């Protein structure tokens, strides 16, 4: 058990965990320049900012591992958020939450239905179908509220669950973070231990061969899109609880962020390989980046440049790593 720590082993570790290394470097630099970075307040801050994006990213991980992609999550967020928040008064918060999750599920099922019935088993085909669906979901949300935002805080009935998700802590840990941990645990178990989890990887690896060997590939597709829809719905609830507003375009841009988080984490865009754990790292990098750059006083313009550059760098370095492994 007493492995020697050699320079080589450090380099090897660094090579294999570039993103973690990047997060550390970022954290160290920031904490030197801005001592407030390491305060409990800021860590809690990061925890809550982490909330909405990580939910989608977790769902997106399954989608990408299965060799597909889902651009509709942005639309699902918008739709679920406005419907859920607007339903608190008429039907109560628990029922509203359930309706929200069911809408997410239905959206996901709709996507998978289109994909399976249309035989759109290529990632690129799924890309455009779900893009179109995103436009549709957003339009439905716009029609539903006539473009107006709905406010959690306007509710006349009890909305304590939402408040809890949005701002409460259990000990030092935010409620939204606990929700994340529960989701992560469930998804990780599914991914690593279950038949359906393996089926996702196998479908992403070679759908034809998997099908011929008796893997229920179509059920797998339904499953991953259903999970993605549900996770987007949970993300929408977390987001709406946090901001206390739900607007029919609030999900815009989240789908690309989620894809970036998944891929930066190291899940192969082509499918067959990956893990929700990696996605946690990828999402953390994205959230930390904006937190750190804000604390460092970098303007949003430069932040955008840096964000793009770091994402490119992360993917490029990760790719080089795999490349050298491959040889």
């Amino acid at each position, binding site marked *: 058990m007493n492995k020697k720590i050699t320079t080589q082993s450090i380099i090897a570790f660094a090579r294999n965990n570039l993103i973690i290394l990047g997060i550390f470097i970022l954290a160290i630099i920031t904490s030197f320049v801005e001592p407030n970075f390491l305060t409990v307040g800021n860590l809690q801050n990061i925890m809550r900012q982490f909330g909405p994006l990580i939910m989608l990213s977790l769902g997106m991980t399954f989608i990408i591992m299965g060799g597909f992609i889902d*651009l509709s999550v942005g639309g699902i967020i918008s739709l679920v958020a406005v419907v859920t928040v607007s339903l608190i008064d008429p039907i109560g918060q628990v029922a509203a939450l359930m309706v929200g999750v069911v809408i997410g599920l239905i959206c996901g099922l709709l996507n998978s239905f*289109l994909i399976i*019935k*249309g*035989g*759109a088993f*290529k990632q*690129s*085909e799924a*890309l*455009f*179908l779900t*893009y*179109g*669906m*995103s*436009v*549709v979901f*957003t*339009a*439905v949300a*716009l*029609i539903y509220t*006539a*473009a107006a935002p709905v406010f959690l805080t306007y509710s006349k009935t009890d909305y304590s669950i939402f408040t809890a998700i949005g701002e409460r802590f259990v000990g030092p840990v935010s409620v939204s973070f606990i929700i994340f941990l529960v989701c992560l645990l469930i998804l990780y178990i599914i991914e690593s231990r279950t038949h359906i989890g393996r089926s996702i990887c196998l479908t992403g690896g070679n759908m034809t061969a998997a099908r011929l060997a008796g893997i229920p590939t179509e059920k797998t597709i339904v499953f991953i899109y259903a999970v993605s829809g549900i996770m987007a719905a949970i993300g929408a609830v977390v987001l709406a609880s946090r901001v206390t507003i739900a607007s029919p375009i609030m999900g815009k841009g989240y789908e*690309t962020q989620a*894809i*970036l988080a998944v*891929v930066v984490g190291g899940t192969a*865009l*082509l499918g067959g390989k990956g893990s929700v754990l990696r996605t946690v790292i990828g999402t953390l990098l994205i959230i930390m980046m904006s937190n750190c750059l804000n604390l460092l006083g970098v*303007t*949003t*313009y*430069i*932040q*955008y*440049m*840096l*964000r*793009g*550059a770091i*994402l*490119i760098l992360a*993917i*490029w370095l990760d*790719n*080089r790593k795999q*490349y050298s492994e491959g040889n």
Partner: protein
Amino acid sequence: MNTKITEPIKNIFSAQKAPIAMLLIFITMLFFKTPFYTRYNLIDLINSNSTLLIVAMGFTVVLVAGGVDLSVGGVMTVSGIIAIKLINSGVSIPVAVLVSILFGAAIGAINGYLTVYQNTEPFIITLGMGVLLTGVAQELTTARPISGENPAFQNLANYKLFGVVPALVLVMIVTVIVVVWLLRSTSFGRNCYAIGGDYEVAKYSGINVLPTKTLTFVISGVTAAIAGVMLSSWVNSGNSTYGDQTALYIASAVVVGGTSFAGGIGGAFKSLLGVMFIGILSNAFNMLNIDSYIQQLLVGLFIVGIIWLDCYARKVKRETV
């Protein structure tokens, strides 16, 4: 001999949903009393979709070679801003335009180097490049629109040839012709199809896959830059928000047109049809005064519908028993 004539027609009706859908719109609009069929509107239809068409041309070349370039929006924005800034600071228009286009080429080269030579996923890399360029555009303008101070710059897009045809349309037509020719009739173009169709085979067949595929990104950068400059000339200003939504819009239009994201299939003319289809659709909706949220819903359904039908047709073909 006979098949030479019937084949293309058969192809259009069996595989091409966009032209048929477009035809349907044209027919439908005959039954409504709208200004759709006025000369003004038809010219505007072409003119106002020209910048998108220009971007779509380079985008198609990349797709055909099996890549994808989601940074076109960013390139458009920044190159437009560069042109305006240079011209405002006294640089002559041709030089400024040239610099902008070179900028587009340079970004294309970087995209190409990273995705082709370093073998990374173009979808993600160019997405990141788009984010980066948005930041560059904001930094260059401090997120404020800047106005063109040299009135001559406006002529680049707005000058009317014979008093009718806007220069923008002319630039678009030239770009389309060049790209159609490039893809159909040059060695480079055919090699793009080979690379997109099967990268390994193309490589083993002696095609210089790396430079060729990289060049497709450069071409995409160049057309995006041309479109950016033309857009800036058309609206006589530059702003970091231009091109914000261009990439996915173009991508879905091109795919609706029938160019495959998988590479090797499609062409510039198809992309032209795809872009025009979505342009005409939204123009017709506007002319019919359809509620804008319903419009959005319908456009979404059209995209889903056409792409789904294409997938379904392929599925049926695969599974014919």
